């Protein structure tokens, strides 16, 4: 099993619903977030292109954050989901320094927190909160090893990219372009 997400940059309108849904679902403290919207404007005026991306932890296959964690608090769960065991985390910040995507933050209670792909929901057969709430239905979630999962199907059909693959982390959130 290999959980992954595909996000359609052509459909996303940057409404931040996913951000709010995540904050509500996961009790993210005010002022913090586990996912966020990035807007990239690229080109030569007047030929400009805008790309909107909903970004979060990429649940990398080769995660520097898991590698550098001295206590094993950051670890892989079934399906390659990267999570943090709160009462094993000492809050040393090594994993925050090690993530090229800056996907982690230090929770006011001391431990490090980040996107979990809503592991508590997918165990019950639900989709992650951000995927479920998106009004344009621009996100796809599922098992990459299952050729018929919606994420496998959409990745087969559409051109896609990952973020800074050259950092060597093998990110598992794919952006449809």
């Amino acid at each position, binding site marked *: 099993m290999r959980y992954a997400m595909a996000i359609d940059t052509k459909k996303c309108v*940057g409404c*931040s619903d996913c*951000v709010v849904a995540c904050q509500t679902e996961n009790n993210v403290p005010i*002022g*913090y*977030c586990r996912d*966020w*919207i*990035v*807007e*990239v*404007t*690229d*080109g*030569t*005026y007047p030929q400009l292109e805008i790309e909107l991306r909903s970004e979060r932890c990429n649940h990398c296959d080769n995660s*520097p954050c898991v*590698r*550098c*964690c*001295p*206590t*094993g*608090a950051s670890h892989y769960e079934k399906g390659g989901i990267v999570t943090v065991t709160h*009462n*094993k*985390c*000492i*809050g*040393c*910040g*090594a994993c*925050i*320094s*090690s*993530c*090229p*995507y*800056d996907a*982690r*933050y*230090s929770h006011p*209670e*001391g*431990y*490090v927190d980040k996107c979990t792909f809503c592991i508590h929901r997918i165990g019950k057969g639900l989709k992650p909160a951000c995927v479920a709430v998106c009004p344009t239905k621009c996100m796809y979630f599922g098992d990459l090893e299952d050729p018929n999962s919606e994420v496998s199907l959409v990745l087969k059909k559409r051109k896609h990219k990952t*973020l*800074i693959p*050259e*950092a*060597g982390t093998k990110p598992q959130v794919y952006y449809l372009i």
Partner: protein
Amino acid sequence: MREEIITSGRLNPHIDPHLEIWHWQIPLYLFLGGLAAGILFFAALYTIMGKEEKYPGAVRRAPILVPFLLVIGLFALFLDLKHKLFFWQLYTTIKFMSPMSWGAWTLMAITPLSMIWAALHIRDFFPKWDWKYDILKDIETEILKYKVHLAWVMIVLSVILGIYTGILLSAFNARPLWNTSILGPLFLTSGLSAGAATILLFSKSAKERRLFAKIDILLIVIELFLITHLFMGFLASTSVQIDAANLFLGGPYTAPFWIFVVVLGMLIPAGLEIMELRHVKIPHVIPVVLVLFGSLMFRFIIVYAGQMSRWLY
């Protein structure tokens, strides 16, 4: 002109780690760790070589400082932890891929060792020292029999500790400035140089001071060589590493790095030490303080600048 503008909906210091993760505690800890490693290295080296009587400043006197350095360093590290009550989790496992893990274990081993070493030589400072209890006296005589073995363990651990202060940072490929394996040897050399300088301060014999002044000059030359290599490597590498190098070559860290670290922390003390060797009268505390200052600034600058350097996407 082709432009790319990235607007992120979250640029705030709570979330963006390049705006806030490691503060003064980490560079201070790296400095004290490196300095402790340097002092212990020379103490062990000259014990193994059987030159204890010739170089008592290195073997017997300077190491008295080390337990204090390590304890203050560990305390700084502890202050940096955000989930402090769980710090013991560090010692429930060993993760070989995590420098912070084996660093923590190395410290766990070298701190008590440095205390034993300091205790063995306490009479150099308090000639009338008495352990009072017979059992302590017995332990002391017993340990003294194995002093050279102890020195062997200490020399290995001190090299690991010295390198670790650099590897800790170089393991982070997300921060291009740190992501170079030269940082390990560079921090080790800088720690050894700081150690040699401190021994100069503790030494009472002119002969010993001359030796350590020479050693320090050699180490500074090696450091300058490694720094040149560091920048050559960056400039020949990917764009993010070129950007990292540019933080020091025209960017915001140019003046502090070249003035505090290279000129004040290396060139001037090396020059003063050379003059001293040529019998010009200079209070030897001046180069020592400069070397220590430079080595502390070096850690501060690398830790802070590293957090500014990042991948852009």
